[in-house]
């Protein structure tokens, strides 16, 4: 006696959270059944192994079918909402949420990488390295790619787009925005010296950058849609990057640099534990920060943004054991005192640059 066909179709779809978890984690039916048996469910419910097997299979099939729904083209995503009206919606949304959830360890591996076939081939290694099943890695990777492809073509707020089209929670949508933003700009995150940074750190920076450094941030709606080649939220504002070259004068002009240093030092004297180190390093630090800005016209240097920030700022400070509060004092004063430099005419540009950079640096500055 073998079972040929075994289905259960409800008026509303029942989703067993535990089985869903196992499915998301990429366990096979056999493994999932074994895990469920170990969880003691048979004793609790008095069910038999055959019942458990059938139930697991049925859930897996249901998930598989729902998964296909999630993959339909974005123009039809609205269908999802309509298919799950009324009381069925919250469970369905939690289903979607679960599907798009990702592992921190995994995302850290692919963050900033091109979401292409090439990267997909590396999933084997990532799976081995992180201990996440290959199936689960694939799902997460495909999710990133799917979201990327959809929002790539869209205008308007990145987070809003993701939220609307993939029915994700606000939190998850923000994370996806960061992932997409990183993938689009190909920021390098895999270098050894960046290993201490978490996904959260990067996501924080991404959000600041999206808010301030992209075209969408300027808030100028393009009059002619065809002329607007860049995505509002995904690409950095080219003009802004170009203008950043102007900041070079801050370090190139010796007088200006000295004036800047003296302004900062005067303001911070006695308030900073590491004042002498700061005084000694001021020119190096300032040169580092300004040079990062000036180099951002080249794609290569954009990619290395985080490497540069860590090399040029975080590491020197860390080696001198600056406490975080001192870093904050310094950065505040460093950006504010530029306003008192009479010869410097790019105050707005400086604020747009330093405002974001200050936030990022503070977040990046930890062990």
């Amino acid at each position, binding site marked *: 006696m073998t079972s040929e066909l075994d289905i259960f*179709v409800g008026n509303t779809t*029942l989703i067993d959270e535990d089985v869903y978890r196992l499915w998301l984690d990429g366990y096979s039916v056999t493994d999932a059944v074994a895990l469920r048996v170990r969880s003691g469910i048979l004793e609790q419910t008095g069910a038999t192994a055959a019942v458990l097997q059938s139930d697991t299979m049925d859930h897996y099939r249901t998930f598989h079918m729902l998964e296909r729904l999630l993959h339909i083209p974005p123009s039809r995503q609205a269908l999802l909402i309509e298919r799950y009206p009324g009381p069925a919606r919250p469970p369905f949304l939690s289903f979607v949420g679960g599907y798009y959830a990702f592992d921190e360890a995994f995302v850290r591996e692919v963050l900033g990488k091109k979401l292409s076939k090439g990267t997909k081939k590396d999933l084997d290694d990532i799976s081995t390295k992180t201990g996440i099943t290959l199936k689960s890695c694939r799902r997460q990777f495909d999710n990133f790619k799917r979201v990327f492809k959809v929002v790539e073509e869209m205008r308007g707020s990145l987070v809003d787009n993701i939220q609307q089209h993939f029915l994700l929670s606000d939190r998850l949508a923000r994370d996806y925005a960061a992932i997409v933003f990183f993938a689009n700009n190909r920021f390098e995150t895999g270098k050894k010296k960046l290993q201490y940074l978490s996904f959260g750190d990067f996501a924080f920076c991404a959000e600041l950058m999206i808010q301030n450094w992209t075209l969408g941030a300027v808030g100028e709606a393009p009059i002619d849609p065809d002329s607007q080649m860049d995505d509002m939220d995904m690409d950095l504002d080219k003009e802004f990057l170009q203008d950043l070259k102007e900041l070079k004068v801050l370090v190139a002009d010796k007088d200006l640099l000295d004036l800047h240093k003296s302004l900062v030092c005067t303001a911070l004297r006695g308030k900073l534990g590491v004042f002498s180190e700061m005084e000694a390093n001021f020119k190096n630090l300032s040169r580092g920060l300004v040079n990062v800005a000036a180099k951002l016209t080249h794609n290569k240097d954009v990619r290395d943004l985080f490497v540069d920030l860590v090399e040029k700022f975080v590491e020197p400070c860390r080696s001198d054991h600056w406490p975080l509060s001192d870093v904050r004092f310094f950065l505040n004063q460093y950006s504010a005192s530029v306003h008192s430099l009479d010869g410097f005419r790019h105050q707005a540009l400086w604020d747009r640059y330093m405002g974001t950079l200050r936030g990022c640096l503070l977040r990046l500055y930890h062990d």
Partner: protein
Amino acid sequence: MPGKLKVKIVAGRHLPVMDRASDLTDAFVEVKFGNTTFKTDVYLKSLNPQWNSEWFKFEVDDEDLQDEPLQITVLDHDTYSANDAIGKVYIDIDPLLYSEAATVISGWFPIYDTIHGIRGEINVVVKVDLFNDLNRFRQSSCGVKFFCTTSIPKCYRAVIIHGFVEELVVNEDPEYQWIDRIRTPRASNEARQRLISLMSGELQRKIGLKVLEMRGNAVVGYLQCFDLEGESGLVVRAIGTACTLDKLSSPAAFLPACNSPSKEMKEIPFNEDPNPNTHSSGPSTPLKNQTYSFSPSKSYSRQSSSSDTDLSLTPKTGMGSGSAGKEGGPFKALLRQQTQSALEQREFPFFTLTAFPPGFLVHVGGVVSARSVKLLDRIHNPDEPETRDAWWAEIRQEIKSHAKALGCHAVVGYSESTSICEEVCILSASGTAAVLNPRFLQDGTVEGCLEQRLEENLSIRCGFCHIPYDELNMPFPAHLTYCYNCRKQKVPDVLFTTIDLPTDATVIGKGCLIQARLCRLKKKAQAEANATAISNLLPFMEYEVHTQLMNKLKLKGMNALFGLRIQITVGENMLMGLASATGVYLAALPTPGGIQIAGKTPNDGSYEQHISHMQKKINDTIAKNKELYEINPPEISEEIIGSPIPEPRQRSRLLRSQSESSDEVTELDLSHGKKDAFVLEIDDTDAMEDVHSLLTDVPPPSGFYSCNTEIMPGINNWTSEIQMFTSVRVIRLSSLNLTNQALNKNFNDLCENLLKSLYFKLRSMIPCCLCHVNFTVSLPEDELIQVTVTAVAITFDKNQALQTTKTPVEKSLQRASTDNEELLQFPLELCSDSLPSHPFPPVKEHLESASSNSGIPAAQRATSVDYSSFADRCSSWIELIKLKAQTIRRGSIKTTVTVEKASPVGDGNFRNRSAPPCANSTVGVVKMTPLSFIPGAKITKYLGIINMFFIRETTSLREEGGVSGFLHAFIAEVFAMVRAHVAALGGNAVVSYIMKQCVFMENPNKNQAQCLINVSGDAVVFVRESDLEVVSSQQPTTNCQSSCTEGEVTT
């Protein structure tokens, strides 16, 4: 031109990409009705086209309106090649044809393709302008309402229940036409879908005509089935019950009626009745039956003669039964006489209803069934489906005569089914023989109704259990005892019925699903030989199924089965029998005896030990089940002081003792003096198997109950959480060592595992009850068994449920305190009361005596009966019946008063009914349930019948997830389409939903599969009770009124 059909195509959405190059679609729509076709413009390059077409108008006969479906095809325009079809929508416009239902069909319909499934949606608006045509010879029957629900629909009142209507139409199956060889599977599937749609329409129209002929206006319990006879054609047949329904203006007023579709039934002991051909026992046919069959209608002399017969017979049975005869006899006879005349002119006094208005059912005789094996031959002339008609007529005739043999003149809960394998077809019909109250069967004047009301009140709550046949000329051997409720009439020891439990029946404890499962191997054979082999096997299967049911019933400690459905399925090399029913303990019937195991080889010591071990296990199981289902019948039932029947009881007991197998049996349960144990003799391995299989049925896990009736007896507090589901399982038998036992075990395991899986899946809903569990077995191929289950899980509030079970007891205790002397007046007063839930005198008497006598051992049976007082009472009863005619006038006045009282409530409700539509718009999801009601909600409107037939085929089975994935997706799509159609009618639920057919065929080697599904139900509008604050605030008023009336009556 009696009708103008107007259709507007508004828009489409989520269409599939038809042009790979642009990833877009150039869609347009063809709208076809009959032979007329309109087209919309092509909406270029969009997956969400906005056609906003003009109104397409079709001027058609109303006959066509009923027959034809509106056919909407969405296509992709292609300049160079043929246009590609995206999919179709069939819309049945019948719901627009009667005034009270939907006025417009408007909504998003899934576009369905038989190969690809649902592909987007289309927004359509359909309206019908009907011109009145009073042509008497018209062929249409517009305006007749159809209901799948097998009870009187909630917002209607039955004025007259006319009776059975049936019709069948035949045609060639497009799948088997020569043209099928050259057309695509899609074309073939669509031809089939369209044909069946057309045939359903035609069938419905023809049934409607019959209803109009009978002067009815509705068909209730409409059941339409398809027989796919393969080469020999396609049969669409339907049965139903014609009624004249009155729309109730106020939902509150009909509350009692809808909550208590009471009916009554009687049972026959089936253990002794293996063969349904009970009427063949000619000599024992009761005298009464003969009287009935030849009685000229409405002859009063006849009436008296039949009552004479009763009286003259009764002395022989002793005092007790004599008194029963005196009391009940003349009345019964009168009743029968009237009913008889009402039913006389009917060819088949059958009713497809399973729940009835209060008082409709007087007595129940038991299940009657008939089967016949036929060889299919090609239907040569589709317009003259005489052969098929004749087949069914034959079966129905047999059913009718079975019912007569049981002393009944009608059959309720009637249904018909077929099972086809190759060219052999088993036709089955079954129902419950019953005696009906003529009130609903005639053109009821007010007087008539009142008269019936009187009678109805005379027949008490346990009335339906009382035997309708003559106890001296029983059509089969059965143990009769006096009713445990009224002590006046005889009841059988078990009762099997096909109907739902009458809501006013007194049930002890809870019920449970009982199934008998059976397989029989059969040699492969051709034509005649095959048919003969099957015919020979059938009686044995019926016998075994009944034995199994009886054993399992006893094992559960219960004494009655409701909703019994026995399905015999024929396959190439086997026959399968599956019987499902809901077992309950009826308070009116005697406590069932235990099961006694007897061995055949008494000298073998170890064998004896084995037997006693098994006996112990069985006894334990019975005890456990009694606890599980809370079956604690009052212990005092033997001991009624003042009851006039002890003597005859004792006599009957003596008689019965002969049939008891041993003294030990009586020892089993000392609390009851008489007890028939059911003896199982273990004389061979087969019997051993039987005993084992008895014990393998595992009860549902705690917190779960299951039944195949509408609701579970003993649970009242349903919450509004319902989950309807369909589950399908197919197993492949290993072809080796196929023996009957192995087969039985496989089949048993299949069903048990399926149930266990359901319990497991739905465990989050505990405490809950699986209601309306409907199993269907089919044998699609040689070694495949397919079981399809549809049911609904409803949660209930456990604490409240406990409370309510207490309440009736409290109530009856209160009632018991009233004086016996009031009893005789009671029925007279009762005529003014329209509520069925009255304390009935015998109940009181019983309970009162029960309370006063509890604890007295059965042995000390009091024989100090005051016979004289009893005789007085009897005579008063007779007086009462004579008086009845005079009291009619009085009653009519009182009734008018009641109506007046009710009307303000009605107005109030009416006002509130304007609110629901707004509430409805917020209710997104369309509920689906196989029940006729929605817990916690009121059905305010019936929008029409949903009857849909779909075919789905695939040539990429693996890619769609194999057979399971394919069927899962298809069933989900069917749900989606049903919901869309209901929503378009303006409804928010479908009740009485049933999947009548699920034919699944696969060919994994070719990566192909095909499935046909036929579903039906009633589209309704419901309003949550919580949304009806004003109404609910008024309901207490109604209750208050009724309790006041009650108070008046009882004091």
